[in-house]
């Protein structure tokens, strides 16, 4: 059949025509530029509209400094706790078979599907001064709502899925045999975890921690409900930004917003670097 020669294409079957490719790339970059890059640029431009000095002065204000400290403290508590919980949950799900496993998987995903505001309200109902538990805690001098513990709990809730969700697929793919091998070689459970399990999940774990950290620093809804938004005390960076903006203090608001974005960007850059290292490690692991 001599006609078949006419059907040979100059490129692979899965490749689009050059025009279609150019259009798709332009659409992707255009959308990103319009909805992501442009707003980000505006934030930095607004922050610096009265000069760098004014921006830095607004960040040095007591209110801003308290917000920065509170946000870093909250992330500093919530992220390590969630890393530990995430490892435990992923471990339980991937290494054991037990009753209620499906329920646990659903519960891990719950914070993704429940609105953060609702989560915050639940915490208020549970720990607020009007509840039995909350009343008792206030009487003990350990208030949860309108205080740091509430903010940390709300942040824990919204960031819970990140680490577990990153780890579960990796751990399922790796299976249990390397751990079993370590056990038959005489290693105890803890040694097996530290020398075999943890090194195998380290990239996924770091990736999950970075995502959780980004979300912990940026969380607004749940924290807004439980914090009471007390200036200089329980107002985190996102909440302080909103309050400053509502008071038309745009340089102060945008300076803080720029700082929060910068923190997120650092996280993003770290994530990209990790992905590069991770893809190399994955490629090496898959060369079988």
């Amino acid at each position, binding site marked *: 059949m001599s006609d078949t020669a006419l059907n040979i294409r100059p490129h692979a079957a899965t490749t689009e025509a050059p025009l279609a490719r150019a259009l798709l790339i332009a659409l992707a970059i255009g959308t990103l530029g319009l909805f992501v890059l442009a707003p980000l640029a505006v934030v930095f431009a607004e922050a610096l509209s009265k000069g760098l000095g004014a921006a830095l002065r607004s960040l040095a204000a007591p209110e801003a400094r308290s917000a920065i400290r509170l946000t870093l403290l909250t992330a500093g508590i919530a992220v390590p706790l969630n890393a530990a919980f995430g490892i435990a949950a992923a471990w339980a799900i991937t290494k054991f078979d037990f009753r209620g496993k499906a329920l646990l998987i659903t519960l891990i995903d719950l914070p993704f599907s429940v609105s953060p505001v609702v989560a915050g309200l639940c915490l208020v109902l549970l720990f607020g001064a009007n509840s039995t538990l909350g009343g008792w805690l206030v009487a003990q001098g350990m208030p949860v709502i309108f205080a740091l513990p509430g903010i940390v709990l709300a942040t824990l809730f919204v960031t819970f899925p990140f680490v577990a969700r990153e780890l579960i697929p990796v751990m399922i793919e790796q299976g249990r045999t390397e751990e*079993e*091998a370590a*056990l*038959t*070689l*005489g290693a*105890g459970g803890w040694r097996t975890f530290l*020398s075999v399990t943890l090194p195998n999940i380290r990239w996924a774990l770091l990736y999950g921690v970075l995502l959780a950290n980004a979300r912990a620093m940026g969380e607004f809804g749940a924290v807004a409900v439980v914090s009471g938004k007390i200036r200089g005390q329980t107002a985190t960076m996102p909440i302080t930004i909103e309050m400053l903006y509502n008071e038309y203090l745009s340089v102060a608001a945008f300076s803080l917003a720029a700082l929060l974005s910068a923190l997120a960007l650092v996280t993003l850059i770290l994530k990209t670097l990790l992905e590069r290292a991770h893809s190399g490690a994955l490629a090496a692991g898959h060369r079988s």
Partner: protein
Amino acid sequence: MHIDIDEIAKTFGTTTALHPVTLAIPSGALVALLGPSGSGKTTLLRILGGLEFPTSGRVLFDAEDTTGLRVQERRAGFVFQSYALFRHMTVFDNIAYGLRARPRATRPPKAEIARRVTHLLELIQLPEIGARFPSQLSGGQRQRVALARALAIEPRMLLLDEPFGALDAKVRRELRQGLRDIHDETGLTTVFVTHDQDEAMELADLVVVMSMGRIEQVGRPQDIRTRPATAFVRDFLSA
């Protein structure tokens, strides 16, 4: 070491993996557990290794009841089907793992560990690969490293789960001879699982044919070939 399997049964939930099976494995024997998938052969091997525990029955090593002995204390050299090498460690570290995992009192000094690993690499005829990672090895090399890692703990027995399953025919034949040589050199009681009758017949002193969680026949290869005890064994061997 002499192994006695006494009325071992195993159920997973509602499925029965092993009906009560009884088997005596003489010291120093090379034994094949032969059967189709789902015959319970891997479950029996994992029970010997301490990775699963029987629902009922006893396991005896040299007449000592070891049914409840923890996996770490069994000193069973276990070679997994997919080898389960630690992918983030070099070949050297893989082989040294069992020695380094020992409690301080019985852990050999560093130089002694290095000496033993070097010796094992020579035993498996791969003296040059200590610094490589598992992903840089061929399938046959990985299998031999897994064998060396299992031998490093000075095991009381060697247990292998489909040791040649993932290899091509030529490498398979070479490694069969390699396993036979290592068995003869160490004198370890060795049990391996396979679904390949040629492998079982060629390599083993004693073949245990299993089906549906039961032992159909135990015997020397030629006896099983010439006098199959059940219709299943006859059909399985002629397949």
